[in-house]
């Protein structure tokens, strides 16, 4: 299955802003009640805000122009009450809407992370880590900025605008139509330009993602750059990415700013219309000075938010471009679904490959028609030249991938019918590249282990010693409390492998796969490991991939893996012969 997000984005038909928005709004569908309440607050608040100028206009016409100061005071009292009420509604509108959007962001982040957890290993191999991290961090941050800051202003401004528009039309229809006419032009212009702006922003986000994965790659491998004297190369590559980013940033910046002066222009034109047309209407006796003053207020009330909306629209487009990139991830489904319970075969082998074919992509088949069986309690070794398919075979045993054809049977059942929990309980896999989480050795050994997670250090040490792992723990200076970092050279590769080994053994799996899991460990320590493996319960099946022959000398059976085919070697000698004769085809 294709999980490459950059290829996906090319293939995917463009989603309209509206469709994207709709999907986003589904995340808050369950908050209808609060949304209604918030809407009520918003409407009350904007009508209060809008009634203000009307009252002021009325005061001017009826009282100021007729020199009735008690009337002025009377109306001022009314205004004060309105303003006090607005104080309350304005607070509740922000509070209500804001909390809805905070919860929405919370749900959104959770669903992205959840999706990341559901997707198979293939997804992570097909995408650059830097790009993924940028998508999940930066793009959600864009949404975050929009929801935590812009959305409330957005809604507040729209309600004020709509209200002001209604008042403009109600007070004097012809004048209202004339005042609003420039807004229609703006609307048309906005609609026409939006796709262009969105495209520009998407381009920019993409080059930002490219730049951060460039930096990520170079910085994490900086020692190679130094040792090969390629500092200039790093500079050059960064310069290209930076220049590229500059170009797209200018493009998106110009696109984003295009509206601000235009909106200002139209707002001024509208004022001019009010002034000219209004005064004309007054001269023919159809309008009053007081109304003109409030009318000017309303047109400001209408166009000022519009101008802010232009700025907010940018944030909105940015958020939507981010949302697009995130929904690409959200729309992916795992290609490793758990199937309904199938038929369970009697007296089956612990694990069996039946005519398995596999390729990481459609054009290149890595494994061709592989069949073999693993019995309980035995030790198997997979040997063969590099690139022959050993790791791939092991990955299929652990169901990191599914075969493209054929079946993998676990305990007489299709491996695809096992729940994740059941399967991972049965199969332990020590990966070629050990991965550690930032924390202590204890955190890492107990990672994902429910059985011992509440053990104190003393209890855990006892468990470790009982599992014959005590000698390995002793290698770490501060024992369980030794600090490790996820990245960097805080501990050696060999030590990382030791931690991964302890982690896997303590989980007590039925099948334990070691994929060159001890490659960087010295041979004496490795002998310890080998003893530990031998002392595992009789029921544990071991599958060992190694280049060092002493690691596999105790194997009950040896499989020779080469050019995507698996054949059985009778003895270690046979395996050696095959290795020597085997032509390396990768």
């Amino acid at each position, binding site marked *: 299955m294709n999980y490459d997000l950059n290829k996906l984005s090319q293939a995917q038909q463009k989603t309209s802003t509206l469709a994207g928005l709709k999907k986003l709004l589904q995340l808050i569908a369950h908050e209808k009640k609060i949304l209604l309440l918030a809407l009520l607050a918003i409407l009350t608040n904007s009508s209060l805000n809008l009634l203000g100028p009307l009252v002021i206009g009325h005061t001017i016409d009826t009282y100021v122009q007729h020199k009735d100061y008690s009337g*002025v005071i009377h109306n001022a009292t009314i205004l004060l009450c309105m303003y006090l009420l607005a104080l309350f509604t304005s*607070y509740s509108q922000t509070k209500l809407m804001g909390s809805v959007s905070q919860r929405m962001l919370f749900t959104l982040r959770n669903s992205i992370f959840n999706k990341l957890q559901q997707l198979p290993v293939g997804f992570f191999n097909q995408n650059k880590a830097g790009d993924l991290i940028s998508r999940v961090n930066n793009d959600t941050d864009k949404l975050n900025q929009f929801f935590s800051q812009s959305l409330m202003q957005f809604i507040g401004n729209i309600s004020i605008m709509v209200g002001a528009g209604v008042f403009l039309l109600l007070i004097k229809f012809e004048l209202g139509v004339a005042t609003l006419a420039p807004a229609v032009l703006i609307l048309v212009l906005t609609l026409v330009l939006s796709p262009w702006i969105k495209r520009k922003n998407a381009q920019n986000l993409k080059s930002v993602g490219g730049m951060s994965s460039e930096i990520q790659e170079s910085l994490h491998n900086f020692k190679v750059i130094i*040792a090969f004297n390629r500092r200039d190369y790093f500079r050059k590559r960064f310069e290209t990415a930076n220049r590229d980013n500059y170009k797209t940033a200018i493009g998106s910046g110009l696109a984003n700013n295009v509206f601000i002066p235009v909106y200002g222009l139209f707002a001024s034109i509208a004022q001019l219309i009010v002034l000219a047309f209004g005064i004309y209407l007054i001269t023919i006796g159809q309008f009053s000075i007081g109304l003109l003053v409030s009318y000017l207020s309303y047109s400001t009330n209408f166009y000022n938010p519009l101008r802010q909306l232009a700025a907010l629209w940018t944030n909105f487009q940015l958020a939507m471009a981010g949302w697009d990139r995130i929904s690409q991830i959200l729309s992916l489904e795992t290609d490793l679904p758990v199937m309904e319970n199938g038929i369970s075969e009697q007296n089956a082998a612990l694990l069996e490959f039946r005519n398995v074919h596999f390729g990481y992509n459609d054009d290149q088949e890595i494994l061709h028609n592989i069949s073999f069986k693993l019995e309980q309690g035995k030790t198997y070794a997979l040997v063969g030249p*590099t690139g022959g398919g050993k790791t791939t075979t092991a990955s299929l045993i652990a169901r990191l991938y599914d075969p493209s054809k054929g079946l993998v049977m676990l305990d007489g059942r299709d491996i695809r019918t096992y729940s994740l929990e059941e399967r991972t309980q049965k199969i332990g896999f020590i990966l070629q590249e050990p991965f550690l989480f930032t924390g202590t050795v204890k955190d890492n050994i107990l990672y994902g282990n429910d059985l011992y997670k509440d053990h104190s250090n003393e209890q855990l040490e006892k468990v470790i010693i009982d599992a014959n792992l005590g000698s390995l723990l002793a290698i770490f200076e501060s024992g369980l409390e030794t600090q490790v970092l996820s990245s960097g050279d805080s501990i050696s590769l060999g030590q990382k492998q030791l931690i991964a080994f302890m982690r896997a053994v303590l989980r007590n799996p039925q099948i334990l796969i070691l994929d060159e899991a001890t490659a960087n460990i010295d041979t004496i320590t490795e002998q310890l490991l080998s003893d530990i493996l031998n002392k595992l319960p009789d029921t544990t099946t071991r599958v060992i991939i190694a280049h060092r022959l002493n690691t596999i000398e105790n194997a009950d059976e040896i499989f020779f893996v080469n050019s995507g085919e698996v054949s059985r070697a009778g003895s*270690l000698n046979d395996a050696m012969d095959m290795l020597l004769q085997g*032509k*390396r085809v990768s």
Partner: protein
Amino acid sequence: MKTDTQKPDKKPPGVFSLLKPYMGLVSLLLLFALISNGVNLWLPKIIASGIDDYTKQHFVFSDIIKKFSLAVLVIFIFSYLQTIIQTYASERVARDLRQKLADKISRQSHAFIEKANPSKLLTNLTADVDSIKLFVSQALVSIVSSLFIIIGASILLFTINWKLALAVIAIIPIIGGTFFYVLKNVRALFIKSRGVIDQLNKVINESILGAALIRVINSQQLEYNKFLEANTEAKQYGLKILGFFAGLIPIVTFTANLAALTILMMGGHFVINGSMTLGSFAAFNSYLSLLIFPIFILGFMSNLIAQASASFTRISVVLDAPDMVDAGTLKETLRGEVELKDVSLVYGQKPALKNVSFSVAAGSKIAIIGPTAAGKTQLLYLLTNLINPTSGYVHYDGRSIESYNSESFHSQVGFVFQDSIIFNMSIRENIAFSDTVTDESLEKAIETAELRDFIDNLPEKLNTIVSERGSSLSGGQKQRIMLARALAVNPKVLLLDDFTARVDTNTEKKILSNIQKNYPGLTLISVTQKIASVEHYDQILLLTQGEIVARGVHDELMQTSPDYVQIFNSQQSTSNYEHGAAH
């Protein structure tokens, strides 16, 4: 840590100092902003005089239209120019700053990068630069034009009616005070929530980089819970911040409304008693709405400035770091003699190497074996000048490693790292990583590393792009590509860090004999676990816990070192087969 606090009294230059090289652009920007804002202030005046002229019955229609249109046009043109310059200026500042940072980083040592932490440097180059960009593109203009409008509008209010103006302007300190109080609290919350977001990102990063492990262990739920905890905390901070903002805006609006009320009551009174015209009264209302908005902006922008300053401080730490002194001038061709004398290395508190001395004759082969965490890799790092010894020295051809020009040095010393480091580019670029590589030496390196068959079977041969963490390649293929990379520079000295770990015995033998044949006279320093592959080496060192506990050729060590014998025996049972295979 202590070195950071040595000069606390020297205040670092503020974020404004960044703008110096862009003075031309910035002044133009401010000039345009001031012109458009200045004319904007004029608009209510035009309206006011229109209303007054009308009440005085000598209203000239075309005159007011002309003035108004002119003003509108000027505003439009200048605000347009302003946005364009704003975009260019901010992006240019960001681009140059990024480039400067990258240049600086590219000149630093390995130790610096590790200490500064690559993830933090990534943040410096992206998020921190972005917040400075935002400062240039928004804060700068907004602040200057807001101040201009506030001052300008205040002055105009005073010229119309000073008593009323005084009453209206009284709101500025109230609003300012509210902003100050709220933003002070919010900023503290922001810093805390930034910490939570960092935590969120850490969980995301680890879950992406450790994706395979998580799936093998089925710890998705565990990761989700970690994330959920951080996310819940982030939500709570978000809600707290929201609480402050929810209070801020109504209070500020209410204060502004009170000003409108004051205008109505006082202004109404003045109009009634004839001390103020109706037009001026209308203008007062217009200026009030002009006045409020900039105050809001100033409040929010102060936040942007604070963020930009914080970012600039973080960036300055990197920019102001002392340059690595590259005093080396020697460009001689190496013969390949290596000597270490009394070298000790202390990492943090713990010693990684203790008084290590040995020498390697040019063209000879030396092996370093030893248990996990004995300090073998650090030893190789010392030999490539990636790190410097705490005491003692490293000599090449009798001269200190530091006296060599680093470019010339690195083009003669090849290093195959233990961990697979494959860049997201073509195989050709991955191998010919240094620009001194000719096609001929590229071919020779490929042949030697036994990569020929593999490359020929790829769809696009040498131009095939391999992915970032090299996940489309097997462990052995990555190792061989890395070997070819080291050989392609035609090194005089080759350092192998556990190269044989991921390559099968058969291939390993072929490769080593290829090296003998194709690179005669090469000094080979190999860190390894396998005694069998190094039995015939000129010298074998046994390194344990940072100390050389035994040295000599294989036969000597078998006589003198029980530790060596133990390692030998641990491999003995199968080395027969390997011997059998070799002969």
